[in-house]
């Protein structure tokens, strides 16, 4: 009955034949999977894709139709800057992810074997191209929306799409090459830096003439540019394909393990675990030198760790504050006041959250907090200082940028960062202390489909406090009054009240509530 060949004198030869046959290995694994996709599964997938096309088809079509509008030349620079920043972010993400990685089991069992490396990594390569094409299409759309389309829209859109896809695919190929060799890594850094510089130049208005020329370029020029970009992208893809089997195994294993953790975190829907993974990966790779701990009162001494961590990542701090210019770029690109206000507060909250790692660790696994023995409320109060300072400073800087670049929100508005700071700190600490997603929470049946309340509640925990605490500021940013003094005063009271109320109501998670947290995070830490 067994189909396995009996050991023979040709055994060695058989083995040699099987080595390199990635297809045979994959077929073997595929045949032993518990659930193979049935015809019904394929139908459901196809139907889902058709539905997506139907749902998003209309907005995309109407967007394309709307593109025929003339774009205000003063806004072109900001729009192009946003596209350049998006591409730089895409390259940075690709680099951080690997980008070439395998599912964790494949990395453990197939990578460390004599199988043909390029064949093994082939599916990953195709997936990367697909991701890059999709990202590139979005970039292309962004580009055409930034530059406008004065004449036959279809050709302009096609040209922009070709440019966007070429840039993203070429960038992804560059990231793959960077994984294989250090010299390409340098090129990737240069391209990312060049994109950042392009964004700065575009915002500063120095590229106005160039951008005006690009926006009104004749169709042959557009075709030539798109063809050139496609040729460069094809060259890079070819080099990347050749380089696939030169990527060091160590780099692949690291990327695959990281990817495995990320996938696990995504499967159990515990986005908090992603932060743990990112933090641990970063600090494990750093060489640190111990410094004496300052003699502070106990709660402040405990909170000092967040300050020290911040000081150890000056580049990250600088990048965060450089990004304070983003709302201004958004304003220049024509973003309405509500979008602008939302960007300022969301950015300030995101920056405030970076100063709450200690509270998040103690919330998820309070073992060290118990050893330290500082009162929960006192610890939180001390830990609120840094996120308040970060969030408030970022909001102030963002508003200064907006007023410098667009003239809006000047004068008294600059002080808005100060009264929103306490509310942002409370919101950041609430986010840091939230429990993992509760998957037992009920699922709501809505006309748009089932909505699981667990992830929803998790996502809004913290944002709710920010919205309540920053309500006067939100109202002020939305209505943009000429004299916002009253709003600022009310905001100061609201911010202080929200922080005081949060600290008053704060209680540590019980031992039962923390069971899920460390268990999930332990996987990330054990590596």
């Amino acid at each position: 009955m067994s189909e396995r060949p009996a050991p023979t004198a040709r055994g060695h030869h058989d083995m040699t034949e099987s080595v390199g046959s990635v297809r045979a290995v994959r077929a073997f694994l595929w045949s032993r999977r518990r659930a193979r996709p049935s015809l019904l599964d394929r139908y459901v997938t196809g139907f889902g894709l058709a539905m997506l096309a139907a749902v998003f088809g209309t907005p995309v079509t109407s967007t394309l139709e709307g593109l025929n509008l003339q774009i205000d030349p003063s806004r072109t620079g900001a729009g192009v800057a946003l596209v350049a920043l998006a591409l730089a972010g895409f390259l940075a993400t690709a680099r951080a992810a690997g980008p070439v990685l395998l599912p964790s089991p494949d990395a453990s069992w197939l990578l460390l074997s004599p199988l043909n490396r390029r064949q093994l990594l082939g599916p990953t390569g195709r997936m990367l191209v697909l991701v890059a094409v999709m990202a590139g299409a979005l970039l292309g759309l962004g580009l055409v929306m930034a530059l406008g389309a004065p004449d036959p829209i279809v050709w302009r859109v096609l040209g922009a799409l070709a440019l966007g896809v070429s840039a993203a695919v070429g960038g992804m190929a560059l990231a793959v090459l960077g994984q294989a060799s250090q010299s390409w890594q340098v090129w990737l850094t240069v391209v990312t830096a060049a994109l950042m510089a392009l964004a700065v130049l575009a915002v500063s208005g120095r590229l106005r003439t160039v951008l005006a020329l690009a926006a009104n370029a004749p169709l042959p020029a557009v075709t030539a540019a798109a063809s050139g970009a496609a040729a460069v992208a094809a060259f890079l893809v070819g080099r990347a394909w050749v380089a696939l089997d030169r990527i060091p195994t160590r780099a692949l294993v690291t990327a695959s393990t990281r990817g495995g953790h990320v996938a696990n975190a995504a499967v159990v829907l515990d986005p908090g675990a992603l932060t743990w993974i990112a933090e641990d990966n970063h600090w494990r790779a750093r060489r640190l030198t111990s410094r004496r701990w300052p003699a502070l009162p106990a709660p402040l001494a405990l909170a000092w760790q967040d300050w020290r961590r911040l000081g150890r990542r000056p580049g990250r701090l600088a990048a965060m504050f450089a990004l304070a210019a983003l709302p201004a770029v958004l304003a220049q690109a024509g973003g309405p006041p509500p979008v602008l206000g939302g960007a300022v507060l969301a950015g300030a909250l995101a920056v405030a959250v970076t100063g709450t790692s200690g509270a998040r660790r103690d919330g998820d696994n309070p073992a060290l907090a118990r050893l330290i023995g500082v009162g929960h409320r006192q610890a939180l109060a001390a830990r609120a200082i840094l996120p308040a300072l970060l969030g408030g400073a970022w909001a102030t800087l963002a508003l200064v940028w907006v007023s410098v670049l667009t003239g809006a929100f000047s004068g008294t508005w600059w002080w808005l960062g100060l009264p929103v700071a306490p509310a942002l700190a409370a919101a950041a600490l609430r986010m840091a202390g939230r429990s993992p997603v509760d998957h037992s929470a009920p699922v709501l049946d809505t006309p748009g489909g089932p909505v699981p309340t667990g992830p929803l509640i998790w996502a809004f925990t913290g944002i709710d406090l920010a919205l309540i605490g920053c309500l006067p500021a939100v109202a002020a940013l939305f209505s943009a009054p000429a004299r916002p003094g009253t709003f600022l005063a009310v905001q100061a009271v609201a911010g202080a009240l929200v922080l005081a109320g949060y600290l008053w109501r704060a209680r540590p998670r019980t031992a039962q509530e923390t069971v899920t947290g460390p268990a999930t995070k332990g996987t990330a830490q054990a590596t």
Partner: protein
Amino acid sequence: MSARNPCAPAGISGYARTVQDSIISIDRLTVELGGNPVLRDMRLTVSQGEIVAVIGPNGCGKSTLLRCLAGLQPVTSGEVLVFGRPPADDTAFWRRVSLLGDDPAWYPGLTAREHLELMSTVHARPRMAVEAALEVFALVERADAPPLNLSTGQRQRLCLAAALLRPSSLLLLDEPERGLDVGFRARLAGLLHEYTAEGGTVVLATHDQDLASHARQVSPSGATAA
């Protein structure tokens, strides 16, 4: 070390007297996890200055008992008193009790030495200086490493250093020998004796017979070793 049987029935007046004199007193403790009784009618008293080793096979309830003593595990029935009152997972309790369980969530971006410095700064009168702790726990050469970059045994030594550096009256240790080499296990017994000589009390769950031989041994299942 005393080898009295902790499971021996005690009279009501005897129990009341024991409660007054003891650091820990457990009476008829029953804990069920998922419907399974893990601890049943357990009694135990621990006096100041004692080292008590909770021993037994895997799954007999050693860690559950320690969690009950730390106020982290609700009891099904019975009474657990630590310092004369039910243990509570609050700051006042943790100022007197030092717990070593699984690998804690180390603070990112801090070195091993800085974790100990933090512990030393937060507690007004630490039991030993950071430098001394690094020496005692053989971590001097790895003092600048983030804890996650330490080996399992080194991380365990760092945990023990943190737990023994800070002042406390009661030390609860769950398998402190985990990952430690033979040499350090022997030194650990000496460190625990030093702790109790200063008036502290130790309850540890362990599989290490040598370590347990330095303590009064009790078994959650009711049987008491010599």
